[in-house]
């Protein structure tokens, strides 16, 4: 069994495409058929209609999305599916490059002479490693999640995988001068990928290492470190030099051309681009003529200048933002229609800045504005009083830089929002120390501040442990369930499936409750992928110089796309969702080692075999042993897919699609609806923008209403929706106008409850002003708040609320509240108008976000049923209760507090058996959970306080409900259990 190099390469291609096909089939079979939650509906709307989404923008992703949406033909309701399929295919492409990267790295170590082909036994190990590594990553949790929805992470992974593979390709062919094309292609891909996600820049150190090791085969430790440092500088140069430098130059051109020379907006930016392009082309021409450098110098200069040119060409996708934003679209976040706004957009300035190496802690107070009048000038388009006025930019504000009274090196606990501070204290075991600090007026005072040690504990326990390693182990060991975890013993921990270890990790594994055991996100791999990966790393590192260098290269990829991101983004606690998708690149790198684990295991077995049977030799035995090892290792990814399929299969899920439309279905014509979160805003935008559903409605996100650009958009007509009644001119609110307003200065025709508020924020003031205008105009336009908003966002208007479907309508009389229901219209919504996204389909996968929205719908059902029962309309109440059980069945959506209303209604309407089965269900679940939780140690119990209270409450109210009937004794044992649990709860609550 021998093959030549060509045959080997052909087989390498064939097997690579086989893994591509497996991955593509997996992802295409499990892709979501329409939009998903979170940012996806926004991205789909931006791609399909060329609109402008949230900073920092992802132009090349949108262009690609639009390309794939073309396959939906004229049926725009299928555009989301096609963009999801784009993610599926791009992810499969990532797998293809992963396979090729593993085999390329292995071939370098295993085959002695570069241009030889491996013998049969070596080929089995090389290909087996590629297959196992690629398939483990294909079916791993985090990567699969992004592969089946319209998010940027799939595309971004593809770009990273492509870059890494191109560099390996270059390395093999570097002898040939035409191989320089691969370097230039990498520059182009990096430029393009800035228009997908900045993550791609993080693979540059690995790229630089490959280049360096190729040039210096015997590179020492010190020089390697210097090169790594240089590669970090390269990233910094692109991120903080090239991009802002180009933008800064464009700003100068723009100011000169528009303000001084009187050209139209954006002409300066265009002139700047053309000038830079001309300069680069001219220097290329001179280099080719040999005017500037000779021989090898010319080759290097040519490649550097050409790479810059291609970086610029890739970066030019951002023209899309300027052009589309200038069209004054209804979705035009931050209105980046000129270079100044675009620069703030790219720098994500709306999100504020996070200190990285030195800065404030949560206990720091601002002493003064250090920039005071000399901060960077912020330019904006001038507010024109007359159409004929020429285009001009003016300084609307100056950037502020604050000086703090207590600063720290490497500050990790930097946010002073109350909920963040609570989390910092919880994770760092805060005690603090007392220090004396300077105050704003020059005096001194004593205060308590976090120590540097606590700062580090927070970094290790939360940022690294909870927000990185936990995700890492999810992918290579196992995951407890798909519930969002904040450190509780029962939510989202990593586990292994090996009882002994899991008992140490998350507590007793006996009688684990259904919420963990039967959760589809409960996946265990018995640490097998992890062990393979560690073995692969060790094996690669011990395979001579090439192995060591290869291991260092992969390690750089692993660290930069993992821990470096953790350090850079400096996350505060209580994130609204799990963030594992950010680190997919790091898990990609580890999967390379998982693949190499096969080679490592083979080597180990050979050693063992040699000791046991020294007389057995020959190629035949070696091949046999290698094939056996590969087959055994292939069981690892197969076991994984058995675990992960059910919680990544999003087929038939229309929840985000239908629930977004349900908000709109709740509203009267011409309505205005205030929203605040991702999941009550983006699906509505999608419905209006892409499917043209209810274009008469205006969705107004109150978080954005804080900004002047959003108020502009709300004051403009959009589709069939007239402008919102905001009674201010642009000059009143532009820049910092009306940012804060003392409450005593506000007079309204309605009596909003301001509690102990002294100031109104701009968005609250705008909301009140709109309601006020509508009230003055005789309530001529319906105005609503989404039920999913927090009470903080209600602007003190709760008493005017009436529930209509998924919205609170603001009505003229102040005798309502969030509990009051417009019975007729809500009944019509729930019984006839709403759609349910296949929530009642057996076997459908509902993750936590989907379940929460199902619970919101069930809550509306409960309010309606209670209101009907109160009126004595038992007939319609029963209809509603049965409808709720039919569309939101308990086998998919476990019973919650709202189910008590259904149970009460069923019981009073004589459906005793059904009511009892709900009671039985709730009580047995609660009993099972509480039984388990009280076997945990006290710290773990304390971490589950929220769930304990919830289940105790459910149990209590269910039993109260049952106690109203004297003849029922079948639940008596639960009463006894409840008393027992309640005593346990009170005793630990006291300590």
């Amino acid at each position, binding site marked *: 069994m021998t093959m030549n190099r060509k045959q080997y390469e052909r087989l390498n291609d064939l097997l690579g495409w086989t893994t591509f096909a497996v991955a593509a089939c997996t992802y295409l079979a499990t892709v979501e058929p329409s939009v998903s939650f979170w940012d996806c509906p926004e991205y789909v709307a931006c791609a*399909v*209609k*060329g609109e402008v989404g949230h900073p920092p923008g992802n132009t*090349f992703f*949108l*262009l*690609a999305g*639009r*390309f794939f949406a*073309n396959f939906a033909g004229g049926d725009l309701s299928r555009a989301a599916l096609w963009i999801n399929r784009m993610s599926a295919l791009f992810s499969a492409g990532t797998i293809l490059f992963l396979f090729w990267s593993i085999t390329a790295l292995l071939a370098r170590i295993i085959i002695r002479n570069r241009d030889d082909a491996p013998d049969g036994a070596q080929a089995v190990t090389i290909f087996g490693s590629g297959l196992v590594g690629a398939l483990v990553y294909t079916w791993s949790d985090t990567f699969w999640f992004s592969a089946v929805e319209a998010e940027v992470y799939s595309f971004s992974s593809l770009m990273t995988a492509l870059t890494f593979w191109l560099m390996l390709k270059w390395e093999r062919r570097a*002898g*040939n*001068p*035409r*191989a*320089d*094309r691969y370097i*230039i*292609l990498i520059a*182009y891909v990096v430029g*393009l990928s800035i228009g997908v996600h900045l993550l791609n820049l993080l693979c540059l150190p690995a790229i630089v290492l490959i280049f360096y090791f190729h*040039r210096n085969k015997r590179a020492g430790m010190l020089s390697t470190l210097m090169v790594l440092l240089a590669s970090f500088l390269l990233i910094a140069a692109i991120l903080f030099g090239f991009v802002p430098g180009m933008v800064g130059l464009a700003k100068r051109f723009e100011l000169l051309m528009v303000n001084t020379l009187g050209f139209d907006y954006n002409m300066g930016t265009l002139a700047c681009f053309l000038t830079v392009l001309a300069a680069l082309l001219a220097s290329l021409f001179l280099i*080719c003529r*040999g005017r500037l*450098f*000779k*021989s*090898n110098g*010319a*080759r290097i200069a*040519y*490649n550097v200048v*050409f790479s810059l040119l*291609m970086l610029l*060409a*890739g970066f*030019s*996708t951002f*023209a*899309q933002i300027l*052009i*589309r934003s*200038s*069209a*004054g*679209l*209804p979705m035009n976040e931050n209105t980046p229609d000129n270079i100044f706004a675009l620069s703030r957009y790219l720098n994500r300035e709306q999100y504020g800045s996070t200190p990285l190496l030195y800065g404030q802690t949560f206990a720091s107070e601002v002493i003064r504005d250090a920039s005071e009048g000399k901060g960077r000038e912020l330019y904006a388009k001038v507010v024109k009083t007359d159409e004929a006025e020429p285009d001009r930019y003016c300084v609307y504000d100056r950037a502020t830089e604050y000086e703090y009274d207590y600063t720290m090196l490497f500050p990790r606990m930097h946010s002073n929002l109350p909920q963040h501070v609570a989390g910092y204290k919880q994770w760092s075991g805060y005690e603090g120390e007392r220090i004396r600090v300077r105050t704003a007026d020059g005096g001194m005072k004593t205060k308590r501040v976090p120590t540097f040690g606590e700062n580090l504990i927070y970094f290790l326990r939360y940022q690294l442990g909870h927000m990185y390693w936990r995700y890492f182990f999810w992918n290579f060991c196992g995951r407890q369930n798909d519930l969002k975890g904040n450190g509780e013993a029962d939510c989202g921990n990593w586990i292994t499936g090996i009882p002994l270890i899991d008992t140490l990790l998350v507590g007793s594994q006996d009688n684990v409750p259904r919420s963990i055991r039967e959760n589809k996100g409960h996946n265990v791999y018995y640490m097998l992928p992890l062990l393979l990966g560690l073995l692969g790393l060790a094996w690669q590192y011990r395979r001579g110089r090439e192995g060591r260098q290869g291991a260092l290269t992969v390690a750089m990829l692993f660290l930069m796309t993992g821990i470096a991101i953790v350090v850079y983004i400096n996350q505060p606690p209580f994130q609204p969702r799990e963030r594992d998708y950010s680190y997919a690149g790091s898990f990609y790198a580890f999967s390379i080692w998982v693949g190499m684990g096969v080679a490592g295991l083979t080597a180990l077995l050979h050693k063992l075999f040699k000791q046991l049977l020294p007389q057995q030799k020959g190629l035949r035995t070696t091949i046999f042993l290698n094939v056996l090892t590969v087959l055994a290792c292939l069981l690892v990814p197969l076991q994984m897919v058995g675990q992960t399929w059910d919680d990544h299969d999003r087929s038939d899920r229309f929840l985000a699609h239908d629930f977004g439309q349900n908000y709109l279905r709740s509203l009267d014509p011409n309505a205005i609806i205030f929203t605040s979160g991702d999941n009550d805003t983006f699906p509505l935008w999608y419905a209006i923008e892409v499917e043209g559903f209810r274009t008469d409605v205006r969705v107004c996100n109150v978080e954005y209403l804080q900004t002047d650009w959003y108020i*502009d958009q709300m*004051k*403009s*007509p*959009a*589709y069939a929706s007239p*402008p919102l009644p905001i009674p201010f001119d*642009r000059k009143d609110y532009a820049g910092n106008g009306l940012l804060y307003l003392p409450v005593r200065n506000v007079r309204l025709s309605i009596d909003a409850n301001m509690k102990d508020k002294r100031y109104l924020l701009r968005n609250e003031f705008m909301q009140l002003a709109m309601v006020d205008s509508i009230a003055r105009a005789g309530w001529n336009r319906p105005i609503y708040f989404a039920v999913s908003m927090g009470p903080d966002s209600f602007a003190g208007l709760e008493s005017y609320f009436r529930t209509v479907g998924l919205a609170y309508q603001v009505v003229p009389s102040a005798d309502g509240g969030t509990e009051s229901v417009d019975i007729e219209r809500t009944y019509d919504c729930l019984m006839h108008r709403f759609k349910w996204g296949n929530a009642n389909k057996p076997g459908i996968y509902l993750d936590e976000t989907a379940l929460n929205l199902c619970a919101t719908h069930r809550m509306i059902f409960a309010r309606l049923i209670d209101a009907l029962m109160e009126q004595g309309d038992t007939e319609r109440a029963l209809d509603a209760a049965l409808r709720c059980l039919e569309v939101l069945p308990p086998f998919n959506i476990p019973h919650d507090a709202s189910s008590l209303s259904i149970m009460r209604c069923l019981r009073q309407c004589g459906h005793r058996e059904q009511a009892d089965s709900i009671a039985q269900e709730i009580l047995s679940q609660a009993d099972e959970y509480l039984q388990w939780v009280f076997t945990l140690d006290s710290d773990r119990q304390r971490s589950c306080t929220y769930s304990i209270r919830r289940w105790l409450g459910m149990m209590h109210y269910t039993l109260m409900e049952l106690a109203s009937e004297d003849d029922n004794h079948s639940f008596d044992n639960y009463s006894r259990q409840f008393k027992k649990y309640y005593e346990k709860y009170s005793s630990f609550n006291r300590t």
Partner: protein
Amino acid sequence: MKNIPASIAPNDFKPCFRLRNYIVMTFSFVLVVIGFVLMCGPSCTMDTFNPEVFSIMRTVIAPTTCFVGYLLIVVGILL
């Protein structure tokens, strides 16, 4: 610097691109520019909503042209 092949003798610099690379790259970038030009046009104002901003030309043909142009640049580099 080891392993310098004979093809790069001193004073004889040959770029890694040939004429056909330059032609395809230029053509592709012109395609990108055409795409962006097609994307421009009249806009909405604060007083009027102009459905023309979502015309087939500006939201389908233009971005698709740009995307194809960007892909062809890759071909231009690798030819």
